[in-house]
Structure formats: structure tokens, C-alpha cells
């Protein structure tokens, strides 16, 4: 079975979103879960992508991805009506949702995508939601409107000050942690480095913090262990033990190194793909 792209949009320079037919996944999926996709059957790579949203009636799921390597570049070049051969899921454990009280949700870059369904579900549970969204610049900020609709308070930061506050997300996060009463719970989803520093902030204030990790995976069902992280000194598999973890126990430094395991090889392939596209005029 292949999966048709029913809608597709470029959200920013390198961020895309698409609705994809996957009726069984749409039915089963809960916030926090992801799918593994591969574009074709013979040679394509399997990559994990968080399910940003789903419509069980229409039988579609929404994916959001950033163009960083060859596979995500190829995915970005697919058009409405094109098909993705493999979509497997929903994988990983759903987010643990309850009424915590005040929850601060920190999203960075593409991390806003997996964060949104969690924020929505937390809101439905009756939590007060304070969202902090960070991006390098205004053009890279995604899902602001959606978060505005689901947050009691929304703070935007950009690295270059082109929009919202010129700061890293950790700055407003710290201020919110200093409020009295302090938030009961935090969620931080974004680049590993952002999650690492968010956790350092919330740890000082003793605020439990869930992070959602997006490590390199092959099968997504626990079989390969390629996604493993060091958690509280022990190996844990992001695919079956996560993807969400208590961020205060994650060894982010090692995780970042593992994320870069194939960086050089992958960059070469991405460059090759871009050149090839140029040559055959696909980039026009």
C-alpha cells in the first residue's frame, strides 16, 4: 500500500508540511507518537517523523519536516498526488497527559511540530498553557497561529530579533520558572542543544521536564537499538522506551554526538542530490 500526499505546503525556507493518507495510523495515533517513512522500497532510507496531527475521518496524518539531508530533500520535492511507499506506525509511547496545573511548553525550530498536539491535548485536560516558541529568525518560525489558539500565554523569541523577543528560549523560560507559583510541568521539544539548556534551567527550579527525542532510527520497533541514548546512566531505546523522557536524566551531549554519526557521509549525498536536481532542472 502506498500513501498519497493530499496536501502540501512550504512553511518556511526549509520546512514543509503535508497531509498523507494513512488511515490506520490516523485512527490509532495519539499525541507524542511518530511514524517511520521511506519514499520507495528499494533504496530509500527509513526516517522517523513525528505525527503533528491526524484526521481519522479523512484517514490522513500531518507530517512536518525540515530539509536537512537527501531524504528530507527528496520528500520536499514530492508534490500533491505523489505517493510515499512506506508509512509505518504509530510508533513510540503516547505522551503522558494529565492535569498538572500550569505547563510551560518550549518549542524550538521544527520542534514546534511535535509540540503542538501535546500542547493541544494538555489544554484539553484543563492545564494552563504557557508556550515559548523560538526560531533563528522570523522566516523560520512555524505554527505561531496554531499555538496562539491553544496557549494562555505565548512568547516568541528569535536569535536575531527579527520577530518577538531577541533571545534564546531559555531566557523567558527562566523568568517563568521564577514566577510564583512556578509552573508544575515543562515540555521542551526542539534541537538537542535547546532541550539540553532548557533542562538545565528547569532543573534548578525542580520543575519536571519532558523532552521528545528524535534520534537516528532504522526499524522504530526496538529491533536495532540505533536510537539508544544514555538515560540515568543506562541505555534506553528512543523508539520503544520513548520518544519522551524525563529530560533531567538524558545525556544530551552523547546524544548529539550520535545524531552526527553519519554527518559527513550524509552531507556529501545531499550535495550530490542538489547538483543532480540542478542538472535535470528540477530546482526550477
Amino acid at each position, binding site marked *: 500500500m502506498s500513501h498519497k500526499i493530499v496536501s502540501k505546503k512550504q512553511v518556511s525556507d526549509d520546512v514543509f508540511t503535508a497531509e498523507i493518507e494513512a488511515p490506520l495510523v490516523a485512527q*490509532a495515533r495519539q499525541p507524542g507518537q511518530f511514524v517511520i517513512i521511506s519514499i520507495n522500497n528499494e*533504496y530509500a532510507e527509513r526516517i522517523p517523523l513525528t505525527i503533528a496531527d491526524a484526521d481519522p475521518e479523512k484517514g490522513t496524518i500531518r507530517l512536518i519536516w525540515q530539509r536537512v539531508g537527501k531524504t528530507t530533500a527528496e520528500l520536499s520535492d514530492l508534490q500533491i498526488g505523489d505517493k510515499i511507499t*512506506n508509512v509505518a506506525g504509530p510508533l513510540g509511547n503516547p505522551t503522558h497527559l494529565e492535569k498538572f496545573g500550569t505547563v510551560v511548553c518550549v518549542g524550538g525550530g521544527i520542534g514546534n511540530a511535535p509540540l503542538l498536539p501535546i500542547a493541544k491535548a494538555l489544554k484539553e485536560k484543563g492545564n494552563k498553557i504557557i508556550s515559548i516558541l523560538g526560531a533563528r529568525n522570523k522566516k523560520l518560525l512555524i505554527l505561531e497561529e496554531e499555538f496562539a489558539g491553544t496557549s494562555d500565554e505565548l512568547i516568541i523569541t528569535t536569535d536575531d530579533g527579527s520577530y518577538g523577543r531577541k533571545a534564546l528560549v531559555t531566557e523567558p523560560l527562566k523568568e517563568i520558572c521564577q514566577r510564583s507559583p512556578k509552573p508544575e510541568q515543562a515540555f521542551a521539544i526542539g534541537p538537542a542543544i535547546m532541550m539540553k539548556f532548557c533542562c538545565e534551567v528547569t532543573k534548578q527550579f525542580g520543575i519536571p521536564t519532558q523532552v521528545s527525542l528524535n534520534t537516528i532510527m532504522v526499524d522504530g*520497533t526496538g*529491533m536495532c537499538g540505533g536510537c539508544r541514548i544514555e538515560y540515568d546512566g543506562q*541505555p534506553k531505546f528512543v523508539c520503544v522506551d520513548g520518544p519522551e523522557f524525563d529530560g533531567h536524566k538524558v545525556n544530551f551531549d*552523547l546524544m548529539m554526538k550520535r545524531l552526527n*554519526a553519519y554527518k559527513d557521509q550524509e552531507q556529501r549525498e545531499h550535495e550530490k542530490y542538489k547538483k543532480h536536481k540542478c542538472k535535470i532542472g528540477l530546482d526550477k
Partner: protein
Amino acid sequence: MTNNQRQQLLQELLEKQKAGKLTPAERYKIPQQDMPEQDPATRIGNVNEVATGYTETQARLEALRCLRCKNAPCVQGCPVQIRIRDFVVAIAEGRYKEALSIIKENSLLPAVCGRVCPQENQCQLTCTVGKKFKDPTKAVSIGRLERFVADLWSGPSRPEHGDQNAEAVPAVAAETGKKVAIIGSGPGGIVAAADTRRAGHDVALYEAFHKPGGVMVFGIPEFRLPKAIVQKEIDILTRMGVKIVYNFIVGKTRTIQQLLAKDGFDAVYIGVGAGLPNFMGIEGESLVGVYSANEYLTRANLMKAYDYGSGSDTPIALSKKVAVVGGGNVAMDAARTALRLGAEKVYLVYRRTEKEMPARIEEVHHAKQEGIEFHILQSPKRVIGDDNSHVTAIECLKYELGEPDDSGRRRPVPIKGSEFIIELDTVIIAIGNKPNPLISKTMPELKITKWGTIVVDEHTMATSVPRVYAGGDIVSGSATVILAMGQGRIAAAAINESLSKK
């Protein structure tokens, strides 16, 4: 022995046989036929099958070594009781089609089992010829003979035997309207699907990956088991009318309860294997460059990482020096795969001795031939990395053998102060798997052991949940293709029996 000499010998022996004058003593004298194989220096540069298969003359000579024992001890050694003596005799007499049908009475995947069964611990262990020579590897080469006849029909085409590829699709009984779900398309699942479909049930085969075959495809490398063989078996299932559904993770995409209560299935067979890789729990095991064998082999086999940059989009470490930890078939597969991916030096680190290695003797032999360096009675104590968290070395301890442990093998005991360093850039951990809790987690009523394997009634493979059956590694821990297949067959028979009563 040249081909001509072999043919001449075969003629002489066949005449004697015909005259009833071929004595056991003369049978013992027939030289055991070596398996033709690719030269080691050549084969490490390709991913093609190492053993290329007996010629017809070789097969018949080898089959003539069989003493035709009345009590056929070989049959007792076979986990699924294939009538081994009878099929070997049929080969000796040139009745190949009959030999294959004899095997197929008990085993649906002879081309696979002929290649991957640990014959020296099974049928060849009990073979009288092997006993005479006090060495199961000198027994009648039952596995090679099984492969020979299987390949005539289900292996890569052999034009010298005419076009015999179009094997008949097994007959399917009239539709019963009953629905059976098979979870996992490994050896057990394939057999369970075929047998339940043959009874006329509507069968769906669910696979979590995007390709069928389970461990035979993602785990066992092409050079040991060509993927085309597995694909042929899958094609037969499709032609029989089995529906194969990929990217379907039972326990996630749908639960077993949903399959039974909502999707109208009358019975479910769980054949998902033991999929969770064990790690050693030592320092540095999550450094960049440390793989589970599952990951390394899946990248290389299923995802074709050996073609990275010229087709495949799945990368794999560009290793120069590799250590594989473990002594089983998976360890041999990983070590030999690393060589084929361009590693200059591959060490196999095992904490007992070669005698205790669970790998098939043939795999150990091939690994050594290819230049894998065996480090026995050693085991890593920690993995060492550089500032970038990339592996640079392992620190090992030396071991000696102590008293036998629960497995009956002598326990390896570390020698104090024997630490030493092996420099390398990649470590592959191949120390076994444990069951994946994906299904049991969503099914609290399913009885499991403390190791996470599913509890079954061994006569029917029925689990503690009505209408749910299980077999293969999810039941036995880490076992073999043939055992998984045998259990798939028992379960299918029980499912067919119970559905016929409804």
C-alpha cells in the same frame, strides 16, 4: 577429484548398488563431497553466495554415502522429523522430485534450511556415518543434499536441469469464510500462513518492515542466504491468495484484541521473533561506532548500505578496524559483512573457546578462511572513545574456563589484571536478543515468562488467550529457523482443527 573421476566413480557405484553389492564398508570409502564455494579472496569483494551448491554428480555420490539405516537415527535428530533417510536414498537413485516432496511433507522451506540449519547439532549429529568417523561434519552432508534438491526448484535457476522454476502452487481448499491473521513474515509466519491458507481460510500476513522474510532478509546476509530464495516462497504465498500487509506493527497499528473483536479474525498466530538486541551494559557502549549486530546487519542487508552513495540512502560506518563481540551465527555474519563493506581488519572477540561457540561450524570455518581474526577467551570491559565520542578502542579482559554453568558449557572466568587494549573504530555487539514486548505490553492477559517469552501449550502452540497462538523465537527465546518453522506448522494445524469445529 576431477569431475570426470567423480562421474566414473558414480557409474561404478551405481552399478554395484543396482546389483545389490554396495556394502557399508564401501560406502564409508566414498569421499565426502566438498561444497563448491567462491574463493575467499574473491568473495570478500562481493555479496554473492559463498557456497555455490553441489553438482548432480556430487549430490548422488554424497547420497550414496548414506548407509540406509533401518532405524534412521537422522530423523530423530531433525527438529521437524523430515524423513531424511528416504529423501537421501531418493537422491542417490536420481528421483529428485520425489526427494523434494518427501522433505516438503515436513518442511516448507528446504532451500532455506539446507543453508542455515545447524546440521552438526541435529541430523548429522545422530547420523551413523558421522558416528563412525567420530565427527558430525564427516556425516552424510544432509544439509547440502537438502539444498541441492530444493535449489532444483526453488533456488536460483539452474538451466542444466531444465526450466523447473515453475513450482506448482499448493492447492487451496474451498473458501471457509474464516479469517486468520499471521503476525510476522519470518519462517514460522510463512509456514503458518501457507498451512492455514491451504485449509481454505482467508489469511492476512502482517509484517512490520517494508519487506517480507523477517530475520531471513534483514539478518542473514545475502552471501549465506540469497534473498531471491525467500522472495520465491513469499511469491508462492501471494499466488495462493495470502494477503501480505507491510508496515503493520501489531500492538501499535492495531492490537490483537482489535484484530479479533473488530476486524473479524477468528484466530491469530504470533511469530514476531525475538527482536530486542542485548547490550553488555559496559561503559562506552553508546559511543558513536558501537552497533548492535541487528542494526549493523539491517543497515547492510535490508537497507543495502553496501550501495550507499551509488543508490542506497542508508549509511553505515566506513570502518577500517572492527571488533565483533559474540560467537554465534549472527557474530559471524556481522564480521563477514564488515569485511565485505571494506574493513581491513576484523576481530571476533568471544569469551569462551571455539568449542563453545554456538555458530555453525561451516560459518566459523568460512569466517576464518576470509581472514577474521579470532580472539577467544577475551571480552570487552569498556569501550573507549575520543573527544567526539567516536570509538577508538576497547579494553578487554582475558578469561579462562571454569566449572560448567546452567547451559552445560564451562563458565568463562575473568583473569584479574589481564586488561589489554585493542584499537579500532567500530564495535558490533552480537550477544543475542530478547523478546520484544510490543505485543505483550498491549495485552496484559497474555501469559509470558520472566524472560518475556510467550507461554504456550507445546502440542498446539496455543497461548493463554483463546484463539491466539504463538511460535518461533517469541516462544523459545533464541532458536533456529527450522524450529520456528516447525512451531508455525503445529500452530497452523491446531488453528485449522479448531476452525473446522466452528
